[in-house]
């Protein structure tokens, strides 16, 4: 079953590199993310907890998908698995048509490089970098070139923070910090954007502002969005909605 869905993942290194080339040929007709009976179990003391079980989902290119559920339902763990930040204990997951199961961390990082954007609940801006530098960081890692600062400034302009580009995160409000994080996510023109509770740390008014900006940017860049949220309004803006309960997809 796995083989039929996932282009024969093997441990063979040469085969892996061929698959990687295939992933570069990724085009819109393929799903951006796909899972097959994906599961995650973690050890706790002498026992183990099944956090996710039998997750089958497909995210097509240029669609917005939300994953919601109660606290502890496994939303964030699922997002980590889909983005290749974590490895599953059962089943399989593919990003851009490439199975992540047999890839080491560097190979998974290479797959994300310049093609995946992230927005986190707690922003994760580096405190010693200005807004401009935080945005430029994504380009330095993913798409190094001459015009890094210009592109970073342009992205900040797009999120309305051009006047604050030389400020440190500690000099920005929560909403402003999340807008910098949005600029960092879209500056590489990603194929897919993963967002984990992007409005979770914001007040009501700012939340709306940031959510609108997120969807505007997604529309402008035509990228896929995988959004984890427990905010049903936000989930309602997506093309497709998944709901998790106790580690299983129920819708």
């Amino acid at each position: 079953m796995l083989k039929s869905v996932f282009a024969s993942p093997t441990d063979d290194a040469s085969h892996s590199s061929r698959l990687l080339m295939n992933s570069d040929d990724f085009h819109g007709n393929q799903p951006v993310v796909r899972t097959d009976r994906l599961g995650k179990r973690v050890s706790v003391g002498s026992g183990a907890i099944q956090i996710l079980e039998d997750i089958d989902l497909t995210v097509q290119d240029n669609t917005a998908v939300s994953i919601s559920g109660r606290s502890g339902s496994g939303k964030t763990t699922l997002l980590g698995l889909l983005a290749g930040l974590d490895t599953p204990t059962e089943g399989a997951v593919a990003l851009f048509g490439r199975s992540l199961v047999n890839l080491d961390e560097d190979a998974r990082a290479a797959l994300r490089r310049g093609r995946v954007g992230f927005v986190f609940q707690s922003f994760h801006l580096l405190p010693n970098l200005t807004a401009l530098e935080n945005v430029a960081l994504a380009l330095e890692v993913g798409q190094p070139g001459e015009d890094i600062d210009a592109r970073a400034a342009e992205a900040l302009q797009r999120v309305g923070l051009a006047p604050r580009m030389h400020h440190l995160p500690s000099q920005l409000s929560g909403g402003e910090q999340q807008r910098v994080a949005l600029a960092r996510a879209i500056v590489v023109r990603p194929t897919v954007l993963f967002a984990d509770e992007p409005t979770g740390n914001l007040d009501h008014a700012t939340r709306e502002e940031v959510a609108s900006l997120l969807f505007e940017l997604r529309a402008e860049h035509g990228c896929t969005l995988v959004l984890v949220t427990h905010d049903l309004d936000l989930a309602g803006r997506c093309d497709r909605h998944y709901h998790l309960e106790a580690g299983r997809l129920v819708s």
Partner: protein
Amino acid sequence: MIAAWRSLRREARLTEFRLFLAALCFIAVALSAVSLFGSRVERAMQAQTGALLGADGLLASSRPIDDEFARLAESLGLRTARTVDFLSMAVGPEDSRLARVRAVSGAYPLRGEVLTRDPGASDEGVGGEAIAAGTAWVAPSLAREQSLSAGATLSLGRKSFEVTREISLEPEGGVGSFSIAPRVMIPLADVDATGLLTPASRARFRLLVAGEADAVSAFGDAVEERLSPHEQWHVADLERDEVRATVGRVVSYLNLAVMLSVLLAVVAMAVAAQGLWRRQAHAGALMRCLGARHGAMVRRQTMVYLLAAVPVAASGSVLGGVFQHVASIGVARAAGIELPPPSLGPALTTTAISVLVTLAVMVPFLFAQRFVPVMTLLRAELRDRVHAGAIGVAVVAFLVAGFAVLLAGDLVLALSVLAGLAAAGVVFWFLIRALLAVLATTARAPSASWHIALRNLASNARRSAWLASAFGAAVFALVLLGAVRGDLFAAWNQSIPENAPNIFLVNIQGEEVDAMRGLLEQRHVPSERFYPIYRGRLVSIDGEAVAEADFESESARHRVNHEFNLTEDGVLPDGNEIVAGRWFDAGERGFSVERETADSLGLAIGSRIAFDVAGTRVEAPVTSIRTVRWDSMKPNFFVLGSPGLFGEAPRQFITAAFAGEDAGDLSRAVNRQFPSVTLIDLGSILDRLRNLVEQASAAVSVVFAFTLAAALLVLVAMLQGQREARRREIALLKTLGASRAQIRAAIVAEFGLLGAVAGAVGGALALASGWLLAWQVFEFDYLPAWHWIAISLAGGALLVGAGGYLSIRSLVKVQPVRLLAG
């Protein structure tokens, strides 16, 4: 490279990074200052030892020394001088007398000086004069005996000399000069005119050299390759018994001071690095999330550290050089000694070591970042697991051990300090945790602030113990260096009793002993026993003839090559202790040998050794091995024989006496009554050494200041590392309704308590270590001054309380909403 520069600029904005670099700079400054200074003091002491020889090294021969050797020495940048020693009859106005003539070239002596005074005067004498053509300087005994005054004529062979000065002190005029004939010194250029030196003459020709230690040793190596059987090479080393013990102690103390201050700086660096590690674990996870490869990140960060560390370490080394220069000017002036110029080598080494320390602290962690899950970005609870405790402890332990061995240059000292530190670490951790637990459960909080402080201490036991341990380590080093320093030097001074002998009387003939004893009693000068001295050359060990070439160590060769001053005694002298075998039984024939001499010559209990004493072979087994307290300033002997062992062999007597300030008077009286007896004024040598020791201890204050600064750096680094946690705690307290005043009081109380506990434990452990060091390394009785525990307790409470308050003062003022937002 450009990317690394950009990263460096960004890293420099982190307080943790700046603290880390401050600690690095500190290590470089401390290492550079103390190693440069330490090496200069050590070289100065070496030079003082050289002063006893008149040179750093000398080539001696029974025949004239080839000019080729002098040219070789000069080509190596060494200064040279020549002397010729021979015995001759000196004809004075009243009588003639056998004299030890030393003809010297203008540059003599290369180290130390010949002190001279007007004939008959009793002052210490002045140095720095060169002996003029046609003039002679004479020993006080000769001047008295022959009633030589300034301008008197003294003839040697065919040449008459005008006596201008009397020699009060000359190189090699130490305790070892047992000789019958008094000294006469003349210019080398006048030797030919005396007509006394012919190819058949028995004379000792010497080429003296002095200069950089490397050049001296290169010269020695070159010379030793082509030595003829009649030539010998000697170097000035710290083997001279009367100075060795003192110099060894000062060097040990300097090593200890250097080691502790550098170790403390390393601790500060590791503490500062912890904050940096946390930051970088987060940044690394984010970078990997964005697609960065781990290997590329390690390379780039390593480059960042190198770019930062090299200039910081180099600047620190230069700054250290400046500090030590300023300190050395003061010390040199106060001690009246000239410190050799600093060399570039230590500065470069210091820079390299500092950069290596940086890499050793940071690179293992960069590699370990691979194990920090990227998921920490999504799951805050995983972040709490991102602590580098094990790596940190391993890195610090490795660095501390490495530094201790590198810096100590003395295995016993290194092991003592390492064992002390390891024990202190364990004791700190458990004792402080136990004390905090007791405090938190039993202390009754008089107010809400105290209650908060105690609860904080108890609920963050690990954090509290970590802070207290690091600060306690700083107190430990400070008390050990500061308090123990004073106590150690005071104890050292006390180890030389008030009435320790300050003169030696040598060459006393057997029939003069009673009269001499009478003279001393009459002048109320307390004296030691009169020891008979037999001059003997070691000729065989276990029946096999010995030769210089049989031994590798310089000291063994020296001993084989020279006559021993032997004595016989039925009672073990004061300050001697048997470490193997037993003291002579009545009627037993045997030798008792000093331990290091036995070691260097490969002697054990039962070894049969034979001496040639004035043509008579005296052979007996070694029946005991002794340690000798050389700085007792009493007559001490490498080899002692059992009573009657040397039979009727020719002998003289020696004693030591305490003449107080009256050495001059006594000297005149002795010279008048016993013209052949030589009085050696040990006082001036002792004063010079004591002065040097005191100044060296004062110089260590400079090192101590560095240690104090390192301790403060540890405190700042620790407190900085806690800001984030404190931020959350203060926000919570404010949210729960605590006032600013209550929070301030709680912070001061918590840190003050922590400081008091750390101070008391650190102080107590330092006293225990001081006692251990006094016993094992410095070798004197030491009574710990307990008041230091109270001082360190109060100091710790004050310093940590104030430091803690100042470090998080700004957080108290901020609104709770703002605190929670970050």
